[in-house]
């Protein structure tokens, strides 16, 4: 059996007296879309921050493509092929939208993969085109709506041409129509292919989300966290019927 694409083993993270991530272990394959759900404060975002090197775990290991990423700087992890978006969007507000994406296009990974692209601007524009906001490329990021900011986050993340894309609440604050559009974009991205000068590897994905109905349509596996512990791991059908998940998160009404 080949080595797992992402392998997390015995991960712990404490904040003072609070254990945010408690002995989390799982692995995922290159072609998977993994949903990460759980109540607020369950440790989902902390787990993502541990994977991307923003936080350092107290113990445990994270291996990406067989390489231990613990101790690496965030930018080194991103340049290995992991990209992430933030739950609370963090655009460069005073910069034009295209410059927001250009920053990602200027990272070593994107520069190496796009050596043949003469102009970084063109590649950034293609990322915006994919996200559906290329018509606003010259506007300041501070003028964008909530939905467009989510799209900008996605454009910034895919500009590095990642192999693992972590989306933290991509549907948060979006209208039903915008949510559908975003879901379609995510699926299209996962299929892979060339979008202008941008090449999508068909990245594996980890999606943190509370809008479970939409999430279930996209993902093929779900992990449920509660108090930092994995309480369920399986297909969407298995997870929604899990007694512990219903009790701790979904409630009797289900999704």
């Amino acid at each position, binding site marked *: 059996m080949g080595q797992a694409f992402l392998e997390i083993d015995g991960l712990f993270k404490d904040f003072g007296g609070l254990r945010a991530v408690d002995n989390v272990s799982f692995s995922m394959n290159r072609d998977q879309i993994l949903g990460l759900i759980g109540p607020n404060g369950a440790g989902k975002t902390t787990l993502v921050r541990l994977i991307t090197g*923003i936080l350092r775990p107290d113990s445990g290991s994270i291996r990406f493509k067989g390489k231990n990423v613990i101790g690496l700087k965030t930018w080194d992890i991103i340049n290995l092929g992991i990209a992430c978006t933030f739950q609370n969007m963090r655009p460069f507000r005073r910069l*034009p939208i295209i410059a927001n994406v250009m920053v*990602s296009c200027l990272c070593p990974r994107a520069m190496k993969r796009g050596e043949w692209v003469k102009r970084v601007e063109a590649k950034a524009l293609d990322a915006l085109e994919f996200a559906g906001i290329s018509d606003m490329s010259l506007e300041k990021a501070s003028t964008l709506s909530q939905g467009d900011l989510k799209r900008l986050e996605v454009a910034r993340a895919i500009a590095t041409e990642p192999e693992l894309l972590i989306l933290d609440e991509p549907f948060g604050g979006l209208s039903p129509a915008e949510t559908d559009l975003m879901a379609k974009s995510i699926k299209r991205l996962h299929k892979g292919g060339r979008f202008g000068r941008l090449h999508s590897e068909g990245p594996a994905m980890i999606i943190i989300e509370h809008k479970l109905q939409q999430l279930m349509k996209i993902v093929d596996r779900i992990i449920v966290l509660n108090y930092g512990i994995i309480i369920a791991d399986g297909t969407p059908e298995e997870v929604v019927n899990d007694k512990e998940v219903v009790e701790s998160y979904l409630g009797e009404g289900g999704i």
Partner: protein
Amino acid sequence: MGILGVYLRKIYTLFRGEVLVLPSRIVVFLFFLVLLFLPVVTQDLYLLRILILTSIFAILAASWDLLSGYTGQMNFGHALFFGVGAYTAALLNLHAHIPPYGSIPLGGLAAVLAGLVIGIPCLRLRGTYLALTTLAFPIILMGIVFAIPGITGGELGVSGLSRLSSSRLYDYYITVVLMLGLCTIMWKITDSKTGIIFHAIREDELAVRTSGINVTRYKLLAFSLSGFFAGISGGLYAHFMRIAGPSTLEVSMSFTVVIWAVFGGIVTIYGPVGAVFILFPLLEFFRFWPEFRMLLFAVVILLILLYMPNGILPWVRDKIEKECPRCKVRNVATRKTCRVCVAPLD
């Protein structure tokens, strides 16, 4: 003649299409022109002296903007770079007999080292904490200067340096051309891809890290570049004044740079340069009323910042130009449609 004619016509077309279309560009062009041809009109030694010092401090103010304005690394100890540049140039000139054209760049390189010395421990600090920490460095160096008077001259400084050049007129041209050149380089840096990353670091460092950019490298680059330009200005100052003293490291020097930059408008490069060219001669003019000099100076600054919080030059620029809502190209305020995309401007 034919080829020359073609080139001249090309230059004129470029000039008409790129410079004459915007008042701000015309002002910058005139600024270059006036500074370069002023000695044709007058060679008054006092006036040239004021303009030489203004040019030197303009480099210093622009270098602060590059670091603190663009990259957001709030530096309240910018005098350190100035002082390191000045002392290095002075000591190399006095003891190693290196002429100014060698000692000034070496002073700049010494200031790059100083930039790294500050930059590395300050990498983890932001905002107020960074500002207060940077404030300490020139004070520490001043302590060192006083501690080893045998080398640094103590309170008296290092004096008796070579002149910048053989005459005041040459001094003027050296400093003015260097100022125009270095400030253009700084502006080009901020307008480049590196400049975009500097901008982004100021906006949100974590987001830059998750974009795969090595933030440490870029922050140290900003400290080094800013240090280099400030060090050059320090070296120029030392050779022009023929002394490098502790006044180059004073806290008041650091804060004066901040005042210049904020007055002119930060994150512009041209703002701090313009501000020095307004405030430094103005302070000289106020010498006619020596007892009210600093009071008048403070009143002018407070009034400007009260009514133009983004600085005087961006305020003026926004009055005489407006941005096209569609293509974001700037136009003369009197135009009704954009000069590029013809979209209505109102």
